[in-house]
């Protein structure tokens, strides 16, 4: 579903990602872990076209993303990808309903009734059916993130990118959001690419975990293997540091 082929990313003179190649199969749940600054979030942002690609190619579902022939083709492939952000990024000038129907109405061309029905279903799924007319500022961080997840799902994406989605939440709200994501992961065939510092979640949720350091993948294994018997010294010390507090 997702193919990175010799992808390169620089910020100024700093090489953030170097000669990065990997594939994610359709429906696979892949988690990227590693120290901050290792380029994990940059990978998600390049997939969402929020960052340019300096070298190599990215393909999604067989369609070129980093080298789309035109704006139309780029939009077509990008439409298959959704993203949930660390800071939720709900539109504060719209209600919860407005946030959920914006994309389906304006991009997918759904009628208002269809979009509203979809919004209601999704709010049910994320447990916020009664907040459909609330404004984002009236919701807790955990609730806002649930709405953001519903907003991304409303676009029926093939690929969903989760960028540290619980990092900005109060500790007591983290578990609820993560268990929601696990439920969604189990009940859909969406391909997930996820950056997180929640190692327990990474272990339960992922089919595969990729350990990044210095812009390279240094270990790529199923979670049981990677967390129980990491091969690389750097993985060991990283896991030791994050699991030890």
């Amino acid at each position, binding site marked *: 579903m997702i193919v990175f082929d010799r992808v390169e990313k620089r910020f100024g003179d700093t090489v953030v990602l170097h000669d990065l190649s990997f594939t994610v199969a359709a429906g696979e749940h892949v988690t990227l872990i590693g120290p901050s600054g290792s380029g994990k979030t940059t990978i998600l942002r390049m997939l*969402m*076209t*929020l960052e340019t690609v300096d070298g190599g190619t990215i393909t999604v579902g067989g369609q070129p993303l980093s080298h789309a022939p035109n704006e139309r083709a780029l*939009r077509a492939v*990008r*439409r298959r*990808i*959704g*993203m949930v*952000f660390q*800071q939720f*990024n*709900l*539109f*504060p*000038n*719209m209600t919860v309903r407005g946030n959920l129907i*914006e*994309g389906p109405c*304006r*991009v997918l061309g759904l009628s208002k009734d269809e979009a509203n029905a979809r919004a209601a279903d999704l709010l049910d799924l994320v447990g916020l059916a009664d907040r459909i007319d609330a404004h984002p500022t009236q919701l807790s961080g955990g609730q806002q993130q649930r709405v953001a997840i519903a*907003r*991304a799902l409303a*676009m029926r994406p093939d690929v969903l990118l989760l960028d540290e989605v619980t990092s900005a939440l109060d500790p007591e709200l983290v578990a609820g959001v993560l268990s929601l994501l696990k439920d969604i992961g189990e009940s859909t065939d969406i391909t997930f690419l996820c950056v997180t510092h929640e190692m327990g979640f990474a272990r339960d949720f992922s089919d595969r975990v990729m350990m990044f350091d210095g812009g390279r993948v240094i270990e790529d294994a199923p979670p049981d293997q990677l967390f129980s018997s990491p091969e690389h010294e750097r993985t060991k010390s990283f896991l030791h540091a994050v699991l030890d507090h």
Partner: protein
Amino acid sequence: MPLWDWNYAWSILPDLLLALVTTIEITIIGSVIALVLGLVFAVLRRARIPVLDQILWAFIEVVRSTPLLVQVFFLAFAVLPALGLQWSAFVIGVVALGVHYATYTSEVYRAGIEAVPVGQWEAATALSLPSTRVWIGVVLPQAVPRVLPALGNYVISMFKEAPLLLAIGVVEVVNAAREAGSQTFRYVEPYTLAGVLFLLLSYPASLLVRRLERNR
């Protein structure tokens, strides 16, 4: 002769009020031009279209760095004759004021647009929203409300600068006052009344803007 003659003051008031209507018309139409054109400038500049961006930048800097009166004369006696156009003094004045203030409101809009968090643009991209929808549905509804007080202040200063247009013969309040005075050689009443009329409108308007500021 008394310093202040009430009978005389009452006799010229109707003319001044009529001229005040013109001043208000100038302010309203000029504001519409300034508010719309300024927004167009701000959005276009954000798009960074090569060449157009440099032209816009130069235009905005030139207008902001030269006196309004020079621009009014330039439009009336250089630009329009060169284009073979004949506009009334009123239209020339309104266009000059509107364009002049558009260069200021564009900066206000720009500040408001830049204050919208980058995450909002990114969320819009993640939903693949078309760019017109990003502007109309997401960015401007967040950017414009926070700059309304600043825009309001420019509308008030435009109202107070409208008398400048007497230089090309627009009969607004101050011109009407001068006219009245020159017929009787009494200037205290006309100019005092003109000042009071401006005060009666500007001051409540500025209170309204302050309330807007507080309610943000």
